[in-house]
């Protein structure tokens, strides 16, 4: 009898969580406010990694995948902003990257987007990465999405990243 009670309690805790997860499955993920005009809706299983008030940015992560999102005030166009970020990286002596050509993509009604893939090494990441830099503009606000993961692992988060870019919320 004591064994049964102990085992029951041990199993009840994760089973209770599974039940609660099933109950909350339809509750939509709550958006994370990046700035007053920009909010990102994380996909399930993504964790909040921190906020940089100065750069007006947030970091989300899942496993070895990360997504850094920030608002670029004063940017003129998505393509120009994309170029600006890539040039900034390429100008840093410790950064070694190879970037693909910028490609426009459908970011949703009333929005324009441009993105480029890249691969290489950054001094603050201890392993080679592959990633995607995407810039989306809506109502005069420009959001930058820098998503990366370890070499060969980006595809595991690509779908989530695309969904978070598609679902990004702009406030006028």
């Amino acid at each position, binding site marked *: 009898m004591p064994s049964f009670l102990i085992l029951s309690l041990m199993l009840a805790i994760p089973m209770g969580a599974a039940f609660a997860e099933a109950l909350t499955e339809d509750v939509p993920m709550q*958006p994370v406010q990046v700035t007053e005009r920009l909010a990102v809706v994380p996909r399930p299983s993504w964790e909040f990694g921190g906020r940089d008030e100065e750069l007006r940015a947030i970091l989300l992560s899942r496993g070895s995948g990360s997504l850094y999102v920030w608002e670029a005030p004063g940017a003129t166009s998505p393509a120009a902003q994309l170029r600006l970020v890539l040039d900034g990286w390429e100008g840093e002596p410790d950064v070694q990257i190879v970037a693909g050509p910028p490609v426009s993509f459908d970011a949703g009604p009333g929005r324009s987007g441009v993105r480029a893939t890249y691969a290489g090494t950054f001094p603050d990441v201890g392993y080679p990465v592959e990633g995607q830099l995407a810039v989306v503009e809506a109502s005069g606000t420009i959001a930058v999405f820098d998503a990366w993961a370890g070499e060969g692992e980006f595809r595991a988060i690509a779908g989530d990243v695309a969904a978070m870019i598609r679902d990004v919320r702009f406030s006028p």
Partner: protein
Amino acid sequence: MTVAPQTTARRAPVAPRWRYQRRLWAPRNAVFWLFAGLVALAGVFTLVDHALFVMSAPAASALSWALLALYIVPVVLVVRALDLYEREPTSLMVAAFVWGATVAIAFSSIANVAWGDVITRLGGVEFSAEWSAAMTAPVIEEIYKYLGVIVIYLIARTEIDDLMDGFVFGALVGLGFSVVEDVYYFMGPFGGDITGVLQGFWVRVIASGLYGHVLYTGLSGIGLAYFVTHRDDRPFARRVLVALSLLLLAMAAHFFWNAPWFWAELPLLVATTLKGMPLLLFVVLAVRLARRREHRWLRVALEREVDRGGVSQAEVDVLADPGRRKALRKATRRAAGKDAERLLSRLHREQINLAMVATRVDDPVAPDLLKQRALCESLRTELHRRSFPPPSTEGSAG
């Protein structure tokens, strides 16, 4: 129907019945098999994780364990030193550690993640990042560790016969949990390289090692020990209240530690002291009270033996006072040397064992008791001979 006698424990403490030691091996007890099954299952889970650490970063993994050994050894020594009178069987102490290091941590990590997902869904990722650890771990981890102390009790009920026993087993469950959790942190959030392991050791062991799981489960273990050792002299409701209060206090302290308060605002050492010191002081107080109770018990048990050869009244007075015991050892060392001090230590140990034997048997001339008395007597004679050697007849006259 027999009514449990209302003892006079509050005025004149009654010594517990220190019995022959039980071991972990109890094949006729279903709880033993539950323990064995769960340890095997969770052990595989934990070993696979650690094998991955070893394969991916062998040097950092080895350094993690080497550094944690520096933490494990003194904690075990302190716990053993506190458990002076009736030392718990090594197999049960190891079992408590293993429960914390395998079963408690494996089940907790699964449940923490699952409940963390629920919190994320309801509160959002930012709220979850700040509060999930405070909302899940204190309840989940404290329950799984507490179950370890319950399992040890159910395997060897007679081994938890005073409050200190609950503290000892609880602290060891907490230590096992803490050590394995530290390795996960060193190899995960701290980066899993040599620098990360050293940083992790600084943050989690040097700055925080005095507080944490050892204290939490030690405290809740005292509560469980109170519940099971006061069956005859405290009402059920009061025993439940004490046990539950101490478990909830452990959870509350764990919550306070995990809550985001102060971490960003204060330097690390100030924050850890502020968050951990109140519980440490409380546990030190609880342990002192439990030890004082043990000293009273020892006195009661030994006073029955006074003038029967094994112990004198003066020796009982010294044995029941750790300060006087230490001072006497020191004085003996100064007066008669290191060997005499060792002999005195052994005499004290055997006189404490005499108290244990005396509570085990009802017959004052039981063979075990006679044997133990004779051993104490012979040690005392030998000590006396060494401390006061007969005057030498060679070369001294003159």
